[in-house]
């Protein structure tokens, strides 16, 4: 399998009707119609692809995730100061981790991009700073086997809005955020006024956490 394959080119390993159904399913997840046309408004459902990786060890779904995220993870690592070979290796390791930890992904708590970021960030700390990163305790419940669809959708929407807002930021503000996340600012230089609607996302997550704690007690 190469990175440039379209879903329609995925090898017919399953044979006949099953393969057709698998490809059709993947096309839908990629935001395309049956005929394979992608509309600009429809974004691939990365969470659904990741759940296929989790539930079916679906390599074709993984390949689609890889095609999108691996080059962006590599870009993140390069901008953080990693050499070309190190960035390549780390990006591969992050994607491998995504495969092994797919069962830990919770679409009501984070978008796939956010989750990928946390894995990449931790890998970068390990590889570039050779330092340990203390992580908060896991919440007392794992991701629910059937995550609340409404919650997941709202969070995906909010993440998308944040993406648009980021793209619209004036260059100066944008640059400050990038410098913070790519390691160009010391912790005492980070001011945290982003000009972005992080408060809304925080509230959504807070509500979801509260509801889950309430259900648990």
């Amino acid at each position: 399998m190469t990175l440039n394959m379209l879903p329609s080119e995925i090898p017919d390993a399953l044979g006949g009707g099953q393969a057709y159904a698998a490809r059709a399913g993947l096309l839908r997840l990629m935001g395309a119609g049956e005929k394979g046309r992608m509309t600009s408004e429809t974004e691939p459902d990365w969470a659904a692809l990741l759940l296929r990786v989790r539930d079916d060890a679906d390599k074709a779904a993984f390949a689609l995730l890889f095609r999108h995220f691996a080059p962006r993870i590599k870009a993140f690592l390069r901008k953080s100061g990693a050499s070309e070979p190190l960035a390549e290796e780390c990006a591969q390791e992050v994607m491998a981790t995504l495969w092994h930890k797919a069962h830990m992904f919770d679409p009501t708590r984070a978008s796939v991009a956010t989750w990928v970021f946390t894995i990449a960030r931790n890998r970068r700390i390990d590889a570039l700073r050779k330092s340990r990163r203390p992580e908060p305790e896991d919440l007392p419940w794992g991701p629910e086997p059937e995550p609340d669809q409404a919650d997941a959708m709202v969070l995906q929407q909010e993440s998308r809005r944040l993406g648009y807002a980021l793209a619209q930021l004036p260059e100066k503000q944008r640059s400050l955020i990038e410098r913070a996340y790519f390691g160009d600012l010391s912790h005492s230089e980070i001011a945290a006024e982003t000009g972005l609607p992080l408060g809304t996302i925080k509230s959504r997550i807070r509500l979801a956490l509260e509801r889950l704690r309430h259900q648990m007690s």
Partner: protein
Amino acid sequence: MTIRHHLSDPLLMAYSAGQLPEAFSLVVATHVSLCDDCRSRLMAFDTLGGALIEDAAAVRMADDSLEATLARISGGPQAEPARATRSLGGVFPAPLRDYVGGDLSAVRWRSVGMGVRQAILKTDSGATARLLHIPAGQAVPDHGHRGMELTLVLQGAFRDTEDRFGPGDVEIATEDLEHTPVAELGVDCICLAATDAPLRFNRLIPRIAQPFLRI
């Protein structure tokens, strides 16, 4: 646990961006384990990181990168210990237990005088993390700091000028703050503190002791 004193946005953003020295990260991770509010704010900053990944201009991967990655996957997952939540009656959240090698009873305390005890935790050299054990009613010697000091209360409480810091509360003290926190009566006060510069004690005896006790 009612937490009134939280982590600041700059601290959470720096932690999200992976830019905090390990000692400060430890305080952040321990507090977030106790505080849903800060956890949610942290996750919002992580979402910003996710947006930066999404928005990045893709860098070309090696030709065989997918195959190489699938080969890595076949090699099996890297072992990672589960981050268990506190056991019943436990005081330290999981990230702190990792550094101590156990809960409160596992701490190897050293006396620093006036009934105060400390245990320095091993972190990278950017900043120092220590546990402090202050007897109920005892004042920590008057000290200023260069840089920033974070103090997270795990047990008991202390008063600092006008504010009270109880379990889960974190005090963020900047350079210009000279303060004398006083542990409340009742339960001994146990805190996790991180500084990015050696503490500057004002009383004579603590100053002599400093090079030996690394305070």
